[in-house]
């Protein structure tokens, strides 16, 4: 199963991305859905904030693929290459937790590039009864 949504890079896109993930994550446990929603929300927020150099003229593409074993969500933006942080900021620094949340909430996270910019891949292993058939 494959689902795609193409969004204008505005703050409102983050809520639209969450709605897309809610629809695409049927069959997951409440906890797994919550975690996927958090990870996808953070990735989309980063795409809007850091991956859209021409602001609202940029697009953000979300693609959801389901197989028997995995739900894979990719978030594509138009940003320049970046190095994801490898550790948490100090407790006194209030920002910079988005990538940490992604890593805590899904089974696999990868940061890469596509023709137009960055792509974040979030993978959640599906349990019994949550296959993509």
């Amino acid at each position: 199963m494959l689902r795609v949504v193409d969004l204008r890079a505005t703050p409102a896109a983050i809520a639209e991305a969450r709605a897309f993930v809610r629809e695409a994550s049927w069959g997951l446990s409440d906890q797994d859905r919550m975690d996927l929603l958090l990870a996808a929300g953070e990735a989309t927020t980063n795409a809007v904030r850091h991956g859209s150099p021409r602001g609202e003229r940029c697009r953000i593409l979300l693609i959801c693929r389901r197989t028997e074993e995995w739900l894979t969500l990719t978030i594509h933006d138009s940003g320049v290459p970046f190095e994801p942080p490898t550790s948490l900021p100090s407790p006194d620094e209030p920002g910079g937790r988005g990538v940490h949340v992604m890593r805590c909430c899904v089974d696999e996270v990868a940061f890469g590039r596509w023709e137009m910019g960055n792509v974040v891949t979030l993978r959640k292993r599906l349990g019994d009864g949550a296959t993509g058939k």
Partner: protein
Amino acid sequence: MIYVADIRLIPEDGWLLLVARGELDLLNAPALQEALSILTSDARNPLVDLRDVAYLDSEALRQLGRAAASLRPTDRDLVVMVRPNSLPERVLHLCGWKRLVRICHSLDEAARPEESRNA
């Protein structure tokens, strides 16, 4: 449909409550920041009620962290009320925010600092 958050400031029993409903993210971060600024500059005890918040992202967390830091010189805690096992509680725990804010599950618990510190 875009879910818009509702943020209100309500005085109650010596507290000033910031009551939020809906989903808190980058879209409504400026409104949250402004409400938190009013909350933390007030002399009453500040409490953020997130029990009816369905989604909370790291941008909203950043605002809460800044508000908590601004209270340090006054020796007051920022109390954050959440539903047990909710998404806001999960985010607060994932990001280690228990060290920055006092998390509780009810107003009664908020009034008893020693109990809510370990919530």
